[in-house]
């Protein structure tokens, strides 16, 4: 992927600069925007509430997260914004990511057998309450995570992102269920129902398999989980419970040796850990000598690794339900 020479790199930069300049040259003027933007409403006032309700109703058929995330916020208060913490057990290769105040965790495993040398996770979580006209409708969590699995010198081997929302209103529930059924995807070759599977002792629907560079999956987990996975060249298997909860996501590398499971992620119910499925049914017995974090690890305030005693059993820390959970 690296450009072969510095002159070529410089030339590419010049061409990209030209391209961006051309794009920017087509930007509308400020006058175009101010000519038609709606009259401002007082923050949190009744006009703001009615505007939200009307817009939410009009957007119902669109079924997009955008309605929840960016438009429908009559009054919001940030309850917590915490940096994330990553912990990885060097014996079992299980990683967990959680916020300092115990908001939902995410965890997964790294498969050292597949030659993945490093894992980088950048994760942040916010939660806030939705208050409409003095009534608390509920709370939301939104997590932005980026997960990278790096194989040797080949960066961007895998990128995954996810959001977690916990809506309470019927409107939002409707949106989430409908979104789960509408697995929009980019550049997708094959989507299919693969029947049922038992994951963590629960019968689940093996929802989709994707074999293409980019995919987008929406799911539900005690509320809503939206998972956006963009394997570089791989596949994505998603398991969804009967109640719509997203149980597990397994990602595969599409290398020359065939599909190899590189990472599986089980989403924790609040306060309840979920077992992680290993590719070959058992955790590895040897630790990867290259399993480490470098300057690309960015996790807010704290990055740490845990080392279990040889022969010990590793347990996953659980996220205690919060007042907003």
């Amino acid at each position, binding site marked *: 992927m690296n450009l072969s020479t510095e002159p070529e790199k410089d030339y590419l930069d010049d061409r990209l600069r030209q391209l961006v300049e051309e794009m920017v040259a087509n930007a509308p003027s400020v006058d175009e925007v101010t000519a038609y933007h709606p009259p401002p409403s007082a923050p949190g006032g009744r006009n703001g509430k009615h505007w939200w309700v009307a817009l939410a109703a009009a957007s119902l058929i669109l079924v997009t997260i955008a309605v929840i995330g960016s438009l429908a916020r009559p009054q919001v208060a*940030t309850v917590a914004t915490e940096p994330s913490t990553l912990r990885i057990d060097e014996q079992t290769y299980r990683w967990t990511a959680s916020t300092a105040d115990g908001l939902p965790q995410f965890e997964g495993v790294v498969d050292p057998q597949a030659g993945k040398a490093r894992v980088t996770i950048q994760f942040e979580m916010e939660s806030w309450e939705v208050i409409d006209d003095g009534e608390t409708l509920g709370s939301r969590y939104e997590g932005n995570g980026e997960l990278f699995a790096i194989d040797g010198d080949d960066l961007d081997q895998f990128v995954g992102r996810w959001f977690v929302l916990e809506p309470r209103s019927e409107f939002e529930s409707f949106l989430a269920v409908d979104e789960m059924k509408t697995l929009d995807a980019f550049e997708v070759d094959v989507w299919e129902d693969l029947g049922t599977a038992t994951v963590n002792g629960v019968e689940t629907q093996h929802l989709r398999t994707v074999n293409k560079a980019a995919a987008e999956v929406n799911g539900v987990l005690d509320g809503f989980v939206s998972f956006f996975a963009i394997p570089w060249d791989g596949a994505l298997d998603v398991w969804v419970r009967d109640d719509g909860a997203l149980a597990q996501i397994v990602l595969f590398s599409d290398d020359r040796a065939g599909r190899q499971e590189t990472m599986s992620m089980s989403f924790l119910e609040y306060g309840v850990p979920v077992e992680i499925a290993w590719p070959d049914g058992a955790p590895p017995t040897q630790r990867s000598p290259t399993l480490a974090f470098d300057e690309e690890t960015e996790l807010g305030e704290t990055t740490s690794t845990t080392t279990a005693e040889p022969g010990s059993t590793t347990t996953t820390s659980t996220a205690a339900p919060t007042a907003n959970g």
Partner: protein
Amino acid sequence: MNFIDEVYEAHGAELLRHATVLVGPADAADLVSDVVVAGISDRKWAAANNPIAYLHRSLLNAARMRHRANGRRNTREWNSFALHQQGSTSRDGGLLGDPEVLQAIEGLSPQQRAVIYFTYWEDLRPAEIAKILGIGEGSVKKHLARARKNLKEALHEFKH
């Protein structure tokens, strides 16, 4: 002048430039309008150390949501516009006039677009871009590397 107009006067042009790269010229004004109106009623706006960076992050988040919602349906934001815009550089044989370049642009994620905008227009370094977008510097570098790779082949000089 109301507060929204003050925001537009002070930052409207740069927000529109960013939005144009994110979602194309046809949707840029809508994106900025939605973000500014929603943002100024958000307490996080008032509490933000850097309000304009907050708006840029909001633009990116809104573009990402729009991108996810529309999927393939919004992938032609440059084609019709570039060909019909009066004085468009596409008529003069610029890069936007190349269908392969347009296709490559449309294949970029909103994050990649944001990164190339701040890299090649605002001339910011990855660390600075990371602060604006609220992501890690490593993430900025990764998005930039991927965008370069995606666009490289579309630029004919690099075809092999």
